[in-house]
């Protein structure tokens, strides 16, 4: 029984650029229509920019690939107008089980905190995610150019010249900025002579997507050294359409082609699920991975995002999630630069904020990989000891690492922050992402993250805001009790609001300053700082 999913074909269309006498100029061009590139194109388009999006292929992801999308990523896609169909299609899961040898060692429950629009995670095949993003990009008028391969790139002082190969031959255009979202083996990176450096892991892994024919629990199961696959690990995770991801560690020396044969896979899966569970094989792939990153992501007018900039192992779902969150950091800044509102130096803060974020993702995914695939006898002894102790001793469960799930990075040390001048009890400090909460706005029930402005937002308790604040450009004021109702008191609780608290929130929904009863001039100064305009005299 196949899943019924057929990859769409997005047809190549000849663009008028190809018939122009001189190279046509585009303000911003995105290379690569994966989750990161599509998100970049959608966000920039929603901020009023004409975007050209190039992809060397003519379809979405072949195979399920990234399947686990985090709350923060869904919040970003919700702003893009894409989260609803993903939530409808995706699978929500909470229970995780860890097995060692023949035994269940422990289970965990990602018990969600109530009062957030988005769940902690959904599982959804990457092809569905990309189809939804492509539909949104097309709807917004993004100039999608399929079967366009970048074969040349030359950076001048004011423009980047790109040479493209298409089914109709080659042509050239120029771009003000290029967002390189062309994946782990980025051609743009190669053309510029740049590298992404880090650790190569030699262990091979086999993905088998199987379709279950009967109900099966929506849980994440992780085995260390199970009887049906000795000395290796196995992960079972549910996706949409009753498809389950089975991820077998194969080791360094396995024969990848042989391992993918259905006669080799079937006995393992039967031993794992039991002989009476009916299933069919849908898709297989063998992969190895790297944990690596570029030493900087901004190179003049070329800005690297997603796997092109940083690559991690799959444990922890930090690849696509990290990529989309990086894009969300970059696009509002690039938009300000393109609109002439901020100097180009604002883009340097993308490096300042996202390089540490990528380092954290690389660190977590490297540690998980080292735990799952011990590299020495002694590390195997420690791992197995932690697993043996974990059944009886809760402390040992904290040592077991089958992937530390993606969480948003806090830009605590960002130059865009205005540090706290006084003590705050709880609430997100500058650099942290905004927690969501249910609110009522304009007579309708909504969510705080849905009513934040497209630019900056001041979220404040009633009476904490000076009159002049409402006249600041690009600032949405949300006074609790005036502009929004805190229906369940969760805004007050999650932001540690007292009599005069006020939070300044960036366009990407991270806090950049907070005060008690701020003057309009303090808010202007903090906005200028967050926009890379320095701490100079504030003006309207």
């Amino acid at each position, binding site marked *: 029984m196949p899943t019924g999913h057929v990859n769409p074909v997005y047809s190549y269309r000849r663009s008028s650029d190809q018939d122009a006498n001189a190279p046509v100029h585009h303000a911003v061009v995105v290379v690569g229509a994966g989750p990161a590139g599509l998100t970049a194109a959608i966000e920039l388009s929603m901020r009023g920019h004409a975007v050209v999006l190039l992809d060397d292929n003519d379809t979405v992801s072949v195979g399920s690939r990234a399947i686990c999308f985090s709350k923060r990523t869904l919040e970003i896609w919700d702003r893009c107008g894409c989260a609803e169909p993903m939530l409808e299609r995706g699978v929500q899961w909470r229970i995780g089980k860890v097995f060692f040898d023949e035994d269940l060692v422990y289970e965990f429950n990602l018990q969600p905190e109530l009062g957030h629009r988005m769940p902690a995670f959904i599982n959804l095949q990457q092809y569905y995610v990309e189809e939804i993003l492509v539909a949104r990009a097309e709807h917004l008028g993004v100039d999608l150019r399929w079967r366009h391969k970048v074969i040349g790139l030359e950076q001048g002082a004011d423009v980047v010249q790109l040479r493209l190969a298409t089914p109709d031959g080659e042509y050239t255009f120029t771009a003000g900025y290029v967002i390189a979202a062309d994946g782990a083996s980025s051609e743009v990176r190669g053309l510029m002579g740049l590298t992404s450096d880090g650790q190569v892991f030699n262990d091979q892994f086999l993905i088998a997507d199987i379709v279950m024919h009967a109900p099966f629990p929506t849980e994440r199961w992780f085995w260390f050294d199970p009887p049906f696959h000795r000395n290796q690990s196995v992960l079972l995770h549910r996706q949409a359409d009753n498809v389950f991801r089975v991820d077998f560690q194969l080791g360094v020396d396995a024969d990848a082609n042989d391992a993918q044969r259905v006669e080799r896979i079937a006995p393992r899966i039967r031993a794992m699920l039991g002989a009476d569970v009916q299933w069919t094989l849908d898709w297989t792939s063998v992969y190895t991975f790297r944990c690596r990153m570029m030493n900087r992501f901004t190179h003049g007018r070329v800005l690297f995002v997603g796997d092109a900039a940083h690559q991690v192992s799959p444990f922890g779902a930090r690849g696509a999630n990290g990529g989309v969150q990086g894009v969300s950091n970059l696009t509002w800044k690039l938009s300000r630069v393109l609109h002439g509102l901020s100097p180009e130096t604002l883009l340097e803060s993308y490096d300042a904020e996202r390089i540490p974020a990528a380092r954290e993702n690389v660190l*977590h995914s490297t*540690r998980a990989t*080292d*735990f799952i695939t011990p590299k*020495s*006898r*002694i*590390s195997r002894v*420690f791992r197995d*000891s*932690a697993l*043996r*102790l974990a059944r*009886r*001793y*809760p*402390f040992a*469960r*904290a*040592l077991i*690492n089958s992937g*530390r799930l993606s969480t948003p990075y806090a830009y605590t040390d960002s130059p865009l922050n205005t540090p706290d001048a006084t003590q705050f009890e709880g609430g997100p400090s500058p650099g942290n992402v905004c927690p969501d909460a249910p609110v009522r706005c304009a007579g309708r029930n909504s969510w705080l993250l849905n009513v934040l402005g497209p630019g900056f937002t001041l979220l404040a308790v009633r009476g904490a805001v000076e009159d002049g604040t409402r006249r600041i450009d690009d600032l949405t004021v949300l006074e609790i009790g005036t502009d929004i109702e805190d229906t369940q008191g969760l805004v007050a609780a999650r932001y540690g609001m007292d009599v005069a608290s006020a939070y300044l929130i960036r366009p990407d929904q991270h806090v950049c300053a907070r005060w008690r009863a701020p003057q309009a001039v303090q808010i202007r100064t903090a906005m200028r700082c967050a926009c890379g305009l320095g701490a100079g005299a504030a003006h309207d």
Partner: protein
Amino acid sequence: MIETPNLDDADAFYAALIDAHRDFSDAQSEAMNARLILLLANHIGRSDVLFEALDAARNSVLEEHR
């Protein structure tokens, strides 16, 4: 003996523990582990805790090989 998580950064500790053994032979690793146990035991100091930990570790190994 504390049985619930008590390390302020369990992942960082674990990574440092494995890294401390890098490039060691089995004999060197065994010697390092012995020294590490003696250092930590002295730091803990209290016999009741140490005896409980010794029992817990021994029983866990016995259970595994039963």
